[in-house]
């Protein structure tokens, strides 16, 4: 820039000469930068060229990944449920295996595999990243004897690599199969998702249960190393290593012995069971029957075995405790009773006369007891499960007020347990029906809903939450499946704290009446679950018999005359000891006919086991 006066006289807008000077500066900036690039090129290609040429001739810098061990899973007392066991996989690096035909011949005799099968594996074109420097898997999980033999005959087998991998092992096959879940190879659909951005084809990933919902915790962090190999593929130097971080270990809230007991009790039935601490929401047992052997998913199963599992009408792969949606049947009367008492449409002095049916409109709605219960009050109605009493209560409330209380107890939405695929159930309202079917709510439908037999759907876990709220004084718990998470060094990373979803503000009187009714179900003279009574332990509960086949049709055929798949589901939900509850149990037995006979004994035996043996 020249002197100032000149600038004042001329324009302040830059002219061409001004820009041109700046452009010259730019050229002087650019040239040295390119000179640096040229010098670097000279260094790499001329000075270090020989070294790099040699490295490229052997192609000897390779990358090996180090897979971290997946986190282990324990029960609440530290009993190992899911483990990793070493497995030796034999692979062949084709480029290093020369002469190839002789190596294959030798391998064939050692492994007792036909030569052409080995050649087929080598030539399989389905490897996307197929490179002659990557090992082709010949046989996985070779035995220790084969391994020793291979090692001692290495000189005659150039190019073989034995990869030690950890295989997932479910220590007690079938035990808690729906809680633990299983793992499998990641599929192309999962790979496309954003959640699996850092996964590669061939990686394993949790597919079901805790294995899936705690994938992030269990998987750990992959490591790897850059290695230099010689011309026959043997490692000569490790250039750098990134250590892998093992997955974290999970301590479930499940008690292995109680889980075993629950599964034994359910073993002859199709159904589900949830046992939970009503004060914290910790799940002590969660069983779904029939179970399956998780190890079958690791070893690989045949098409028939797989078909057998998915086509089985008893649906073994479904976790019925959280994914099975059933009509709640008479267990819903607890909700109906609370709604009636809280809303003031009934109180402790309210009585209804049950002649065995209720006429509504031009139809007759029957009580399960043909002769009727006579005059009943609220506690009798719960204890004896009188349908007419709750028809009347439901009519006074209307379906929407009933739904309000059902939702307050968490029905109609997921409980939030950390297991995938949980179902939310259904709480019908007039609005819901209008939206869903376009047809207005019919008064008679309220009657069915009041005894849990209409559109209502619940999961066994949701009913366990409802019973917990009654047992713990109105707190809505979030069921917990995990007690704590530890890292591989045994330090607690996450001590899972109980989570309350809220408190249902119920009157003390309501609580007392319902609790009394539930106590009488088991302990009263006319209770529907007297069969479940155990000496020394006070159990409170409620039976339910969920009809699969409509009773309203007027047919009078006997239950046991029906085909198995038309028989009713049996429910029993309970807590014990009645005075200071420590355990809530929710049981459903599909097509078990009567809650009292099929489900209640299972619950009471489990409670007995827990209070007599597990607790101490």
């Amino acid at each position: 820039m020249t002197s100032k006066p000149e600038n004042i006289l001329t324009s302040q807008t830059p002219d061409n000469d001004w820009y041109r000077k700046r452009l010259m500066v730019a050229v002087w900036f650019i040239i040295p930068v390119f000179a640096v690039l040229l010098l670097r090129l000279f260094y790499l290609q001329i000075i270090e060229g020989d070294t790099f040429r040699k490295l490229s001739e052997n192609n000897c810098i390779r990358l090996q990944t180090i897979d971290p061990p997946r986190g282990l899973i324990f029960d609440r007392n530290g009993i190992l449920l899911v483990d990793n066991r070493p497995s030796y996989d034999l692979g062949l690096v084709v480029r290093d295996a020369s002469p190839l035909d002789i190596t294959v011949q030798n391998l064939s005799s050692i492994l007792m595999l036909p030569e052409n099968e080995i050649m087929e594996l080598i030539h399989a074109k389905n490897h996307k990243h197929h490179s002659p420097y990557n090992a082709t898997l010949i046989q996985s999980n070779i035995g220790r004897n084969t391994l020793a033999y291979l090692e001692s005959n290495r000189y005659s087998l150039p190019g073989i690599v034995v990869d030690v991998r950890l295989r997932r092992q479910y220590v007690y096959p079938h035990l808690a199969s729906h809680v633990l879940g299983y793992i499998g190879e990641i599929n192309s659909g999962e790979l496309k998702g954003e959640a699996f951005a850092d996964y590669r084809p061939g990686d394993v990933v949790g597919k079901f249960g805790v294995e899936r919902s705690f994938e992030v915790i269990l998987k750990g962090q992959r490591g790897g190393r850059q290695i230099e190999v010689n011309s026959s593929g043997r490692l000569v130097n490790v250039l750098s290593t990134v250590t892998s971080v093992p997955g974290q270990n999970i301590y479930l809230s499940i008690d292995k012995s109680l889980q075993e007991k629950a599964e034994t009790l359910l073993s002859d039935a199709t159904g589900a069971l949830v046992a939970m601490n009503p004060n914290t929401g910790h799940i002590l047992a969660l069983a779904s029957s029939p179970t399956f052997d998780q190890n079958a998913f690791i070893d690989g199963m045949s098409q028939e075995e797989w078909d057998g599992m998915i086509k089985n009408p008893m649906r073994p792969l479904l976790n019925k405790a959280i994914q099975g949606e059933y009509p709640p049947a008479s267990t819903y009367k607890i909700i109906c009773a609370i709604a009636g008492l809280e809303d003031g449409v009934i109180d402790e002095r309210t009585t209804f006369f049950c002649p065995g049916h209720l006429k509504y409109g031009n139809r007759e709605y029957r009580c399960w007891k043909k002769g009727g219960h006579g005059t009943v009050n609220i506690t009798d109605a719960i204890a004896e499960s009188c349908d007419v009493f709750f028809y009347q209560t439901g009519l006074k409330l209307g379906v929407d007020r009933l739904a309000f209380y059902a939702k307050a107890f968490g029905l109609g939405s997921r409980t939030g347990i950390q297991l995938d695929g949980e179902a939310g159930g259904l709480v019908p309202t007039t609005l819901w029906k209008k939206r869903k079917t376009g047809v207005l709510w019919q008064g008679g439908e309220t009657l069915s809903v009041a005894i849990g037999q209409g559109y209502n759907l619940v999961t066994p876990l949701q009913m366990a939450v409802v019973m917990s709220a009654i047992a713990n004084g109105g707190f809505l718990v979030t069921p917990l499946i995990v007690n704590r998470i530890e890292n591989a060094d045994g330090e607690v990373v996450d001590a899972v704290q109980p989570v309350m979803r809220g408190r249902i503000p119920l009157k003390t009187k309501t609580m007392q009446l319902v609790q009394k009714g539930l106590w009488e179900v088991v302990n009263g003279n006319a209770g529907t679950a007297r069969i479940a009574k155990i000496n020394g332990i006070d159990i409170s509960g409620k039976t339910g018999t969920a009809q699969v086949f409509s009773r309203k049709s007027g047919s009078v055929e006997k239950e046991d005359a029906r085909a198995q798949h038309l028989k009713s589901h049996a429910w029993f939900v309970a807590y014990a000891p009645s005075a200071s509850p420590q355990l809530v149990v929710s049981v459903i037995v599909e097509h078990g006919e009567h809650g009292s006979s099929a489900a209640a004994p299972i619950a009471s035996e489990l409670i007995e086991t827990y209070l007599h043996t597990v607790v101490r």
Partner: protein
Amino acid sequence: MFDRRLIQYFDWGLAAITAALIASGLSTLYSATRADQINPQNLIFYRQMIWYGIGLGVMIVSFLFSYRKVDHYAYGCYWLCILLLIAVLLFGRYVAGSRRWLILGPISIQPSEVMKLGIIILLSRYYSRIGTVHGLIFRDLVIPILLISIPCLLIVLQPDLGTAIMILLIAGSMTIFTGIEKKTLIYLLVFGAGACPVAWHFLKGYQKQRILTFLTSDSDPLGAGYHIIQSKIAIGSGQLFGKGFMKGTQNALSFLPEQHTDFIFSVLAEDWGFWGSVGVLLLLLLIVVWGLNIAHGCREPFGVLMAFGISTLIFWEVVINIGMVMGLMPVVGIPLPFISYGGSAVVLMMTSVGLLLNISMRRFMFE
């Protein structure tokens, strides 16, 4: 409208350099994709040919009309690019952890590539109006900084940190070229340095991790670091005369990552050796200097700034890409102009050359 002088002043030199670069690019691409096992033989090569065909058309269009029209539509171009960037965040295809491609029927475009030219045109227009010999003061820079931040932010969200930095480099170069008052420049630098730790504080853990990985990428022995080693082996093993066209072994055995896009220079250096790589590097230097010379010959601030902006675009891409494959820079997804595979990049470069030709042939013509 058509003027005979346009043919008279046509910049044959620039056209020749471009043709030479395209020829070396296509032959390297042919060599780089011969070992590709996922795509059928040379599908990528033929796609690139088609892109150059399209690019040629766009180039001709972009020098037929006067570049002064670009000045007129500068803001429209800019906001269109911004719209594309928003669209890619909403509807873009998710590939390997980011959203960069917008699928439009049979073709997919990368709006962040287009944005590079968008920001050059916008800043050329803006600075050509406000530039003074005393340099810009802070008040002048408020709007440009805002207009630069919007696309940068949108590109970081994809996330594509490399291209965002690229846009900052182009915009920064153009701003400094226009001239900033000394005190303002110092304040800006101090403010920028001070803002980094504050911004860092607001970033989430994984975002911090992403930036750290980016800055130290060549030290990651399993990812970028491994790629750099293989790339250095490929380049170095080319030695003086190279292994010969299509004879590179690192490339053939798929040891090179992204050998037809970001790492294509390693294929070239392995095949052609020091002489070949120096030749291409000099061609690239020549086109940058040629662009600056076009700016030198132009008599309007808008034309000067645009020619300068395009030259810096080519300059920074070359330096970052070649610096990266030789292990001098962090690993960033920046293509090598004229050589790397990529439709959007090809069309962008051809448009840029078209605009340079445009400015060059109208340097003696005024409206």
